[in-house]
C-alpha cells in the first residue's frame, strides 16, 4: 500500500483554502473565528476598562478617540481611556519594564497601543504582545489586504495577526501656494528649490518618525537597487544603497534652515513654522492633514498638498495588545470596532480627522460605502501618487545612527 508523506500543515491548509475559496468569498482564508468564540469575547468584554496608549499630538486624533469611547460605551459598556503619550517607544519601554519586573498576564497597565514599524518589531521580537488576534476579528474580512499589502506587512515585518490595522499613511508635503507656486515633485527638485531659496526648507531631527521618513523617502528614490531595501539590512547593503543618500543630504545641508546645523523637534514644529511663513513647506503622514487644518481654520485656504510624482512611502498604522493587558477581550472588541465601516468612515472624514481607511470599499454594502463621501475639499491631494513600500524595519536603526553621526553633532 503506497504511503504518502503527510503534506506539511501550511501547504495542506492552503490547498484546502484554495479549493474552498471560490465558494467562500466572504470569509478570509485565514483562520476565521467562529461566531461562538467571538460572542464569548464580547461577553467577557462587557464592563471592562481599556487603557489605550495613543499618540496625542493633535486635537483631531483626541476628538476621534473620544467619539470611539462614547460608541463602545454605548454598545458594550466598555470604558475606553485615552492615555496620551508623546512617543510610542515610551510604551514599549514600559511594557518591557513590566515584563522584567515579572508582571504576568492581566497585571499590566497598557491594554491597547497605537503602534507600527520598528516599535512593533521590537515588541513582537521580545514577546511583549498578546495574540495572534487580528485576523480573528469579525471586521478583519473587510480589510483590503490585497490592494494595501502593508496591512499585513509592517515595514516588511509580517504582522502574523499580532496587530490589527487601523489607518493608512502616506508621506505628503504641503505648502502655502502663495509663497510656493511651483511645488517640487521629487527629491532632486527639492534640492534645487533649497538652492534657490536657502534657509526655508527643513525636516525634523531624527529619530522623530517624520524625519526618519523623509530620509527613507530620499533613500528609496536614490538607492541603486530598491528591492534590497525590502530585505533585512547588512553592512554591505547599507554602504551601497545609502551612499547616494548621504551624498544628497550632504549637498542639501548647507541650504537648509539655519544652515542645517539645527533641526526642529517634530513635524508639528515644522508645520507651525510653515504657517508662520518661516519655512516654505511642511511634511506629514496624513494626506488629508492640510485639508483638516484648513477646515479648522488653522491654515489659510491657499495651502495645497501633494506627493512626489513617482510615489512616496506609505504604510499602515495599527493597534496592538500587550501580553499582560488586563482587558484583552475589551481591547479586541475596540480593535474590531475600529475596523467597522462607521468608525473608518468617520476617521476618513476630513471634517473629523481625514486619516485614510484600511478597508476595501468594494467589499462594503452600498449603504456602508456611501458613508465614505468624497467631496474634494481645499488642501486635499489632487493627484495621489503611488505608494512606495517601506524599507525593512531593520534599516531604521542604522540609518538613524548614521544620520546622527553625520549631522547631529
Amino acid at each position: 500500500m503506497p504511503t504518502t508523506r503527510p503534506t506539511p500543515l501550511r501547504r495542506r491548509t492552503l490547498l484546502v483554502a484554495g479549493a474552498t475559496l471560490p465558494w467562500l468569498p466572504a470569509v478570509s482564508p485565514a483562520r476565521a473565528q467562529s461566531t461562538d468564540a467571538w460572542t464569548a469575547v464580547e461577553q467577557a468584554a462587557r464592563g471592562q476598562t481599556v487603557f489605550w496608549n495613543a499618540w496625542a499630538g493633535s486635537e483631531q486624533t483626541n476628538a476621534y478617540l473620544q467619539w470611539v469611547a462614547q460608541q463602545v460605551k454605548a454598545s458594550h459598556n466598555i470604558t475606553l481611556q485615552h492615555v496620551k503619550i508623546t512617543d510610542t517607544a515610551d510604551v514599549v519601554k514600559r511594557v518591557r519594564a513590566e515584563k522584567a519586573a515579572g508582571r504576568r498576564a492581566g497585571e499590566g497597565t497598557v491594554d491597547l497601543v497605537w503602534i507600527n514599524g520598528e516599535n512593533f518589531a521590537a515588541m513582537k521580537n521580545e514577546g511583549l504582545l498578546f495574540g495572534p488576534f487580528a485576523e480573528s476579528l469579525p471586521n478583519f474580512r473587510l480589510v483590503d489586504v490585497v490592494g494595501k499589502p502593508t496591512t499585513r506587512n509592517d515595514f516588511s515585518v509580517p504582522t502574523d495577526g499580532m496587530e490589527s490595522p487601523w489607518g493608512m499613511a502616506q508621506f505628503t508635503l504641503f505648502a502655502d501656494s502663495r509663497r510656493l507656486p511651483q511645488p517640487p515633485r521629487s527629491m532632486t527638485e527639492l534640492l534645487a528649490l533649497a538652492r534657490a531659496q536657502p534657509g526655508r526648507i527643513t525636516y525634523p531631527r531624527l529619530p522623530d518618525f517624520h524625519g526618519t521618513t523623509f530620509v527613507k523617502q530620499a533613500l528609496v528614490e536614490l538607492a541603486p537597487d530598491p528591492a534590497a531595501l525590502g530585505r533585512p539590512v547588512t553592512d554591505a547593503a547599507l554602504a551601497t544603497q545609502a551612499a547616494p543618500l548621504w551624498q544628497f543630504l550632504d549637498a542639501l545641508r548647507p541650504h537648509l534652515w539655519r544652515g542645517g546645523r539645527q533641526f526642529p523637534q517634530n513635524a508639528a514644529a515644522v508645520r507651525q513654522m510653515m504657517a508662520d511663513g518661516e519655512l516654505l513647506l511642511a511634511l506629514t503622514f496624513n494626506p488629508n492633514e492640510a485639508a483638516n487644518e484648513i477646515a479648522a481654520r488653522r491654515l489659510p485656504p491657499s495651502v495645497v498638498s501633494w506627493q512626489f510624482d513617482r510615489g512616496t512611502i506609505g504604510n499602515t498604522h495599527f493597534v496592538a495588545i500587550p501580553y499582560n493587558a488586563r482587558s484583552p477581550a475589551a481591547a479586541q472588541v475596540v480593535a474590531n470596532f475600529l475596523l467597522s465601516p462607521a468608525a473608518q468612515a468617520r476617521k476618513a472624514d476630513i471634517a473629523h480627522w481625514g486619516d485614510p481607511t484600511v478597508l476595501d470599499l468594494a467589499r462594503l454594502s452600498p449603504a456602508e460605502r456611501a458613508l465614505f463621501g468624497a467631496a474634494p475639499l481645499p488642501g486635499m491631494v489632487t493627484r495621489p501618487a503611488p505608494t512606495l513600500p517601506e524599507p525593512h524595519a531593520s534599516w531604521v536603526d542604522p540609518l538613524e545612527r548614521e544620520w546622527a553621526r553625520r549631522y547631529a553633532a
Partner: protein
Amino acid sequence: MTHTGRGERALALGLLALVAGPLLASAALALGAALDATAWAAWPAQPGALRALGLTLFTGLASTALAWWACAALLAQAVVRRRLDRLLRALPPLLATPHAALAIGLVFLLAPSGWLLRTVSPWLTGFDAPPPWPTTQDPWGLGLIAALVAKEIPFLLWCAATQLQRDDASRRWQAEHTLACTLGYHPVRAFWRVVWPPLAQRLRWPLLAVLAYGLTVVDMALVIGPASPPTLAVLAWQWLQDADPAIQAQGAAAGLALALVVGACAALVLAPRRPRRAVDGRRGPATMGWRPGATLLLGAYAAVLAALAVGSVSGVWAFPALWPQTWTLDAWRAVGASGATVGTTLWLAAGSAALALAWSVAWLECAPPRWDAALRPLIYLPLLLPAVLWVVGLYALGLRLRLEGTAGGLLLAHTLMALPYVLLTLSPAYQGFDPRCAALCASLGHGRWTLLWRVKWPLLRRALASAAAVGFAVSVAQYLPTLYLGAGRWSSVTTEAVTLAAGGQRSLTSAYAALQFALPVLGFALAAALGRPRRFRPETP
C-alpha cells in the same frame, strides 16, 4: 526649648525613615541602572555628547551666575530705597509661573516669527518673512539662559525674603544697615558690605538648588534650548525614551554623569570660605545694579503672559501680522473638556503639599539640631539629582512595590519631590521663631501642644501658607514623575501641556500653558489670603 526628649527623637527617626527609605532606595536603583560599564564607555562616544556636556555647563553656570547677581542687585535697590515689601509682594505670581509655560511664552516672543519681531516688521526691518536668525533654540544656549534667569531670579528673591523676614533677623539687619550709613558709608555700599555677606552665606542651599536645576532641566531646554546637540539632560532623557535597552543604559549613565557634575559644582558652592575682609574703608557710591531691573523683570513676565493669552485664541497668524488673522476658541474648548486632568492635578498638588508641610513641621519641631544639620543634604537630594535619573529610580522602586499606576504611589512620588522645596522655604521662619515665646508659654503652665496650636503655628501662619503654596506649585509642575509613576492611568495638566506642545499647535499649547499657570497662582493667592495677619477692630476712643 530644652534639649529634645526621647519621644521626640523616636519621632524624628520615624520621619527620617519615611523619607530616607524611598529616597535612598530610588537613588540606589537609579545608580544601579546607571553603573553599566559598556554604557559608560558608549555615551561620550555618541555624536554631540561632549558638546552637549559643554553646553550644559555653560548654560547652567552662566544662568546661575546671572540670576545670583541680578537677585543681589534687585535686593540692593529694594533695601536702599525701602521698597523691599513691595518687591516681595510682587513675587508670588512670578514664582507660580511654571517653567515650561514661561519657556513657551518666551519662545513666542523671541522666535524669528515671534511677537517682538512682528511689532517691528515690516516697517522697521523690511522683513516679509521671518528672518533666518537663530533667536530661539540657538546653538549657544542663550535663549535657555535667558529663560532660566527669568525663572530663577524670583526664586532666589523669595528665598532671600524668607531669610530677611525671619523674626530673629529682620530688625537686626535693618539696624546694621542704618548703623553703617551713620558711619559714613553710602547706602548701596553699606548694603554690599554689611547686609549682603551674611545673607549670601545663608542662601547657599537655594543657590545650589538653582544651579542643580539649571544644569539638569529638561522641559525648558526642550522648548527653548539648543537642539543639535541639545543639553546633556535632554540627550539623556531622549536616550532613556528609546526602546533599545542599551541606549537606555546610556541615558542612565549620562544622567549619572550629570549628577556628578552637579556634585562637583555643589562642592564648590558649599565649600566653606573665609569671608572677604572688606575693611578698606571706602565709602563712596558703589554699583547700584540696575535701576529699571525690577520693572524689566515684571515687564518680561507680563509680555510672556500676554503672548500666551493671545496665542491661545489665535487661528491663522502668519508673519508679519501683528494680531492673529483668525480668532478661535477651539483651544479653550479642548482645555475645558479635560476636567479630569485638572481634578487629578488639584488633588495631587493639595495632597502632596499637605503631606510635605506636615512632615517638614514635624521634622523642624522634633529633630535634634545636630541631626538636622547632618541630614539636610539627604533631604535635599531630589533638588540636586537630575530629575531624569531620579525618575528611573522612583519608577523601579514603584515597580517593585507594585505602586505604579496607583494613586498612592503617585502621591508618594509628588510628596518626595515637593518636600525639599517646602523644607527649604519653611526652615528660615520656623527656625527663626523666637525661642523665648516657648519659655514664656511654659511658664504660664501650658504644655507643648498648646504652644504649638495656639501660639507658634498661628504666629507662623504666613510662613506655613507660603511653604504649602510652594509645595503646591512644585507638584503641579512635575512632569517626569507623573508620566512614569502614573503609568498612564493618571495625567496632570503638565503632562497634557507637554504632550500637546509636542503637537506644535500654538493655540493649544498656549491654552494649556495658561492653565498650567493658573493653578499655582490660585494656590499662592489662597496662601496670601490665609497668611494675612489678623485684623483687629479699630480702637474705640
